[in-house]
């Protein structure tokens, strides 16, 4: 048998991740942890202005470990479309998103209670890879001490039952009962959404 040495098709591999660690706040939210005067304000703390179009919503929640303890050192970033379903990104090919909406938020959890909280808008619908519309959703990325590679998940909305029923991502789930782990509870602009890293209620995490 010929001994073939595989030649990589591409010159590089992605830099391996390492945990954000317990002091992630120093780098990503320095004002939050008392390092003031370096940056005017922490990035991602304000997603909307008076001019932002769309329905104002608040999403808050906690991230729980396998013992049911909330993570007080977690940092959460979210990324979402504007009210029309467009992303405020150079990589958005379909049009220009609402300039008064960044679509990106960053929140360090409360160091006493573990709560994260975002004041944003209800996102519009975005197509799936096959062109069908996905249900309204917010992408989340979670980093903390003990998390070796940032976790990707999504927030959907319990009160979007019709759109959720035909969501192409949900269709991929072998265990349909896990859909509920992604549904933010509430309505009238106020939603709560807890994330469970382990256990019977473990949130669905994605390999995107």
């Amino acid at each position, binding site marked *: 048998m010929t001994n073939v040495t595989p030649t990589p098709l591409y010159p590089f591999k992605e830099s391996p991740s*390492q945990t954000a660690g*317990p002091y992630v706040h*120093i780098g990503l939210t320095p004002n939050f942890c008392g390092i003031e005067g*370096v*940056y005017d304000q922490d990035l991602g703390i304000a997603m909307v202005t008076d001019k932002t179009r769309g329905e104002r919503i608040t999403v808050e929640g906690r991230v729980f470990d396998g013992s049911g*303890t909330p993570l007080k050192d977690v940092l959460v970033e979210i990324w979402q479309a504007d009210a029309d379903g467009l992303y405020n990104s150079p990589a958005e090919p*379909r049009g220009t998103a609402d300039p008064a909406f960044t679509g990106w938020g960053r929140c360090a959890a409360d160091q006493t209670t573990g709560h994260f909280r975002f004041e944003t808008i209800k996102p519009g619908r975005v197509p799936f890879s096959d062109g069908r519309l996905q249900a309204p959703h917010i992408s989340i990325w979670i980093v*903390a001490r003990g998390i070796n590679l940032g976790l990707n998940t999504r927030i959907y909305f319990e009160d979007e039952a019709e759109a959720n029923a035909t969501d*192409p991502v949900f269709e991929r789930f072998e265990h349909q009962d896990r859909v509920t782990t992604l549904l933010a509870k509430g309505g009238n602009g106020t939603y709560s959404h807890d994330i469970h890293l382990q256990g019977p209620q473990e949130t669905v995490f994605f390999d995107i």
Partner: protein
Amino acid sequence: MKNSRPQAANYFPRDRAWHPQAYAPGYKSSVLRAPQRPLIAFANTLSETTGPAFGHDMIGQLDNDLTLNFAQPGMSAIGERIVVQGRVMDERGQPVPNVLLEFWQANAGGRYRHKKDIYLAPLDPNFGGCGRTVTGDDGAYAFRTVRPGPYPWPNGPNDWRPAHIHISVFGQAFAQRLITQMYFEGDPLIPRCPIVKTINDPAAIDKLVARLDMESSAPMDSLTYRFDIILRGSRSTLFENRLEGN
């Protein structure tokens, strides 16, 4: 045949055997924080292939100089002065321009400016520990700092972190979002570190070790360390994308 409509690229799948394992019991904090169910995969949508952009105009003059950005006027941080520089590229070797990098680290004594850090080493009144920059058109970046000290941490009975700088990177897509740590060539604590050892492949660990770049070092000023950062590459073919996208 309808001519292909603009479609966002699909990113190469993450090689999860190359990345650190989520559940790595040698690093105790990972035990209760590692998801146990399989991740669910689906083809990238615009939710993954778009991402926030940050302009050069956001960056203040001292943002990329940790020796000065927290220091009193006329003062600077204590420690071995270094410059870290490199390029952000994707797996295809293409530069990733105009993306935000954020850095954080302990001071030269191994102490973080954070209320949770109670290590014996003193705080440096002129060192905050954070910095940021945006890559140039060629993906290049640089920042000045002091070399961070190693420090002990409560994991095993006598575990020490090698000197390291945390680096957060935005790509052009939310799917490229990455946080990692940069180590220093020759540090004997690297192979002993339980966090480093969450990565199984020695070749992968080696990619996180910055090299001393003597040629770029500024005489009578600072040593330079070279650290390139690689983000996920994207698949795009003439069939899937506009010609100008390739």
